């Protein structure tokens, strides 16, 4: 388990202030934030490489705030492997290994036994990262810290390595804290998401939660929400005529109309009337040729202004009454619906998909 309470630290140009969060034992924490937020500094402070100037750091029940790195039972993997250049692969993995057997086991697990006797400068980026992780895990750490461990790898290698890490994680159940840029990856793994900005923790919680209900438009934007609108919200009464089915009673208690530009749509939430922001994830917007009779309270006609293919999903931007709305649609749907720039289409999303912040 990792628990930080009001931790402050400074390393060169990066500083942390009043950082508090907790990752439960055996849990997987994700740290996200813009460049310069201090994410690496955070990991290094937990590792003990950077000294905390105030606050407490507790790892697996032990207060390690003043303990040196070697006494904290942690493993650290940097973005660039930092394998010891003067040692072979095997010597690297053996370096702090709890036992020779464990080192051998890790080498096998991560599939680098063929490379064991080689000097490290002959390895590819992916191989180096594998060795670095094997080296960290060979020590049987109770806490594993990963600083964007996969971002320097090509997508295919990234998947392989990620899968290996996850497998070992499920087996050994160490507590992990990973800095990542890829929030999608975070959503897959994490128990706790920590959003860091300029040295401060601005939001923590379940990744799904943080994802869908970011506390500020800034976080939303950073987390990759394509639809962030500034506008104003007002609660609506039951008398509003264009209200549709669903659970009228519960719904109407919290129904909110959000207006941005010429567009108004419905959201849920106890909101103080006035200026606010609305966030809708592109994945929550669906497209159809005609409006459907469903519980989707928000359906609008609009014209497609852009289609950006992006792997399995395409990003389709629709102009609705002057406001661009982005929908994430499978490539197949694009084909089936015969979506092209300029065609008319209906974009729909539930009121529950709208997050006001």
């Amino acid at each position, binding site marked *: 388990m990792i628990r930080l309470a009001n931790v402050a630290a400074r390393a060169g140009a990066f500083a942390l202030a009043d950082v508090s969060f907790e990752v439960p034992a055996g849990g997987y924490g994700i740290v996200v934030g813009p460049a310069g937020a201090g994410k690496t500094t955070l990991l290094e402070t937990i590792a003990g490489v950077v000294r905390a100037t105030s606050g407490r750091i507790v790892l697996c029940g032990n207060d390690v705030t003043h303990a040196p790195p*070697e006494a904290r039972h942690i493993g650290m993997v940097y973005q660039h492997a930092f394998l010891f250049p003067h040692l072979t692969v095997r010597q690297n993995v053996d*370096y702090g290994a709890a036992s020779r057997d464990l080192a051998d086991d890790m080498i096998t697990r991560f599939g680098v036994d063929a490379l064991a006797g080689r000097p490290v400068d002959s390895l590819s980026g992916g191989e180096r990262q594998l060795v670095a992780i094997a080296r960290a895990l060979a020590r049987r750490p109770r806490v594993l810290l990963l600083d964007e461990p996969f971002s320097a790898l090509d997508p295919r290698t990234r998947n392989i390595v990620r899968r290996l890490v996850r497998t070992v994680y499920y087996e050994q159940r160490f507590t992990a804290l990973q800095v990542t840029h890829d929030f999608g990856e975070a959503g897959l793994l994490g128990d706790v998401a920590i959003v860091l900005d300029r040295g401060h923790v601005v939001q923590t919680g379940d990744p799904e939660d943080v994802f869908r209900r970011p506390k500020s438009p800034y976080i939303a934007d950073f987390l990759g929400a394509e639809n962030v609108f500034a506008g104003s919200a007002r609660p609506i009464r039951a008398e509003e005529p264009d209200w549709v089915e669903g659970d009228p009673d519960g719904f109407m208690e919290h129904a909110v109309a959000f207006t941005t530009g010429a567009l108004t749509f419905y959201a849920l939430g106890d909101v103080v009337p006035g200026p606010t922001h609305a966030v809708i994830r592109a994945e929550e917007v669906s497209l159809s040729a005609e409006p459907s009779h469903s519980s989707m309270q928000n359906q609008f006609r609009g014209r497609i202004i852009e289609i950006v293919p992006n792997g399995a999903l395409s990003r389709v931007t629709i102009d609705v009454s002057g406001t661009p709305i982005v929908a994430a649609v499978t490539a197949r749907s694009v084909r089936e619906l015969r979506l092209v720039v300029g065609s008319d289409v209906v974009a729909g999303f539930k009121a529950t998909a709208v997050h006001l912040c």
Partner: protein
Amino acid sequence: MPLAAERAPGMPASSAAARGAGAIVVALAASVFLLFIVAPVAGLVASGGWRGLAGLGADRELRASLVLTAFTATVATVLGVIGGTPVAYLLARRAFRGRALVAAIIDLPLVIPHPVAGIALLLVLGRATPFGAALYAAGLRVTGSITGIVCAMLFVSAPLYVSAAREAFARIDSRYESVARTLGDDAWRAFRRVTLPLAGRGLTAAAIVMWGRAISEFGAIVILTYNPKVASVLSYDRFTSTGLSGAVPAAAVLVLFALLPLVALRALRMDERQGR
């Protein structure tokens, strides 16, 4: 080097010619400079080299002087490495307040005129001073002794070692040490198992540079110790007492001797390029 720079289409002829002329000027300047350094050394070795080397067998005084010079320089270098390595490491790694000042102080002996350095040492280590009196009582004389030679060499050449060693440490990313710490090493072990091996080549080169500087020192040494004579003092002495004809063979031998550290440095670099 092209005599006339190729003209890219649309480029005015004058600037192409100017570029060609510029290249010639640079080449000329470089040649003159190299000549300035090589000619005196080559001339000395050419006029006295064989005689000097041949006479080395008979010239007991010169042989003894060379041995003394090599020995004292080595002692000074060992002391410099032992004392200077921690300082270099601190300067490279820790950003403490006054770091720039400490670095400047360490560089001071490099800009002090050499006899002044010798006098300064005498004023601190001489028999008549409190510290020097203690040394004297312990049997360590600083004038007319090997101790004095080593002190003078150490004073003028240690800054070179510290500078170069600091660079060598700075070139090694501190994250290697951080990783070693997370793998269970305490600070000293991480230094020993990771930093030192990685910096080893740079530190060796730094020590060689220091050694080379130590064997060439004259002004500071001669203030403290005239006898026994190190190579530089001996060559000056030969010149003053027997003139050029007596001094040239010895001087030529000394120049060849001074090439040793340079050769060693070259060998190190060559080694590095071949990847150990």
